[in-house]
């Protein structure tokens, strides 16, 4: 997890459009994210999770951290990707992310390297949303259909 303070370029401040929504679920919430590629759908899913913890317009980009996730299959990869992001928020550096940029997306070895842009969560500055307890595999779906240009993910997070 290397910090790259001061190395932010102008491009890093461009905020991607919102391509996610929150779906109904009795005790929890289901994240539904999509994009023009599976990479984008994953990034959006991560941002959806942060968007549930606070209101992202209040978050400024002040720091970049890089996370890595790996797994044995695609679902595992999505799970561990989100789990790494949750950990980034829950312990040092307590990062709340406004933007995620996956720089390596290896679908054969199931590995992700992602740059996470945001700042340290601060009560008073960032509205407190819901606390995410854990990522779950329940009803997880990854739709990867390049011929229809359809890339979507569904994840239930335990809150």
């Amino acid at each position, binding site marked *: 997890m290397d910090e790259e303070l001061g190395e932010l370029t102008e491009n890093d401040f461009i905020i991607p459009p919102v391509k996610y929504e929150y779906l109904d679920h009795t*005790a929890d*919430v289901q994240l539904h994210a999509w994009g023009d590629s599976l990479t984008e759908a994953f990034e959006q899913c991560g941002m959806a999770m942060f968007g549930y913890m606070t209101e992202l317009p209040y978050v400024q980009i002040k720091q970049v951290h890089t996370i890595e996730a790996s797994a044995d299959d695609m679902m595992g990869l999505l799970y561990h990707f989100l789990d790494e992001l949750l950990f980034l928020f*829950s*312990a040092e550096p307590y990062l709340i992310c406004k933007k995620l940029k996956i720089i390596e997306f290896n679908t054969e070895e199931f590995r992700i390297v992602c740059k996470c842009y945001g700042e340290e969560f601060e009560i008073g500055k*960032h*509205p*407190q949303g*819901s606390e995410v*307890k*854990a990522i779950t595999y329940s009803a997880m779906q990854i739709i990867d259909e390049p011929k229809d240009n359809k890339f979507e993910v569904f994840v239930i997070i335990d809150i």
Partner: protein
Amino acid sequence: MVVRQYNEELKYLEKINAHCWRIKKGFQPNMNVEGVFYVNNTLEKLMLDELRNSCRPGMTGGFLPGVKQIANVAALPGIVGRSVGLPDVHSGYGFAIGNMAAFDMSNPDSIVSPGGVGFDINCGVRLLRTNLHEKDVLPIKEQLTQSLFDHIPVGVGSKGIIPMNARDMEEALEMGMDWSLREGYVWAEDKEHCEEYGRMLNADPSKVSLRAKKRGLPQLGTLGAGNHYTEIQVVDEIYDKFAAGKMGLERLGQVCVMIHSGSRGFGHQVATDALVQMEKAMKRDQIDVNDRQLACARINSKEGQDYLKAMAAAANFAWVNRSSMTFLTRQAFAKQFKMAPDDLDMHVIYDVSHNIAKVEEHIVDGKLRTLLVHRKGSTRAFPPHHPLIPVDYQLTGQPVLIGGSMGTCSYVLTGTHQGMTETFGSTCHGAGRALSRAKSRRNIDYKEVLNKLETMGISIRVASPKLVMEEAPESYKNVTDVVNTCHAAGISKKTVKLRPIAVIKG
């Protein structure tokens, strides 16, 4: 999952009496024992509606209906007696929330399942009493509420204020409330009124990942978000004068404080880690379950033992957490009333765990057996004279603390002998959700909820505005229905009803 028409499904369910339904074998595949659930007419409708909805074609929700989950638990290896659904049952991760199941420790096939404990290990409720009357609090209620809110860190991203480094944390994980006592945060007698005396002896911090410890450290002594709360409550009704008296609740209007919280990110991470390990163990040991979410391991396997030791550490974390907030609560009261917590008689009445697995002895088919009892959204409710309950409650039965939802009443019950034989000494834990969070936010108006609380005379401080809708009483089953069902079914007995006058939430 077996797909059948709703009418076909109903053939597997049989109403035994006014408050109890039987789930017959065959409702789900490979059921080793039958299932059972407790409901009254209102709750019965909610339960069956959930099943009916899942029978509609094209339903691909995240969770199975609660009644199906109870039946899937009945299919787990080593289960004895029945898989029990309490009146507040609703669908959860693997196990239903409001589900208890016991597994025979002497059967080598028996399993332990993190899904049967829940992500929030040792989530529980603690009740403190005071010698104050409602009329003593009313003039300074807003200040007191604000002071509690200022003292207790709440909501997402909040950090504990009890000084703590990594080494303190290791000790706290091992010692539970003994740590809090040594550090001066609690009174010696607090421990007496706590399940397990606030310390699980088999806790082993070395079985806990660094990740869990890192998540836990900043959050020790924080309330959390979601359905967790601290409430100032007053005694509204006394049903059992003798039992209430033993708890030091002697008059209407007497002020109490209820704390509902768990093991925070620490416990969530312990559960997450265990689920990953157990998926592997299941493949290796060829354990077949009906639902992937029921990840489990044999009790005697390395994964099973490691989980139980890590779970115990998380349980200790939760007790230290509730103890730290007890300390902060006492401080807030002491400052407002300019009296020592001692003089305010702020004793712990009891502290219950409603997400936990414990080794207990029970009579099964006339024989004494050692069981691993999973209670997820279910509270232990031991009867009078049980050796594991404190001396003070030997004649009344164990106090059972049932937290309501925001703005509704809470209850104190006691354990019964009937509960001991029917449900392995277990009862309900709270209201149980009825509406999804998203639905609550869409259908319930923020201002309306706040106005309603104000007319009821309830002060409120909430960190997250959307929680106001999500946690509105309309989102939950009626806790009175839930408690009355437990009382009528005889699995626990009503003692006291508490009414909130101030709520602090994440």
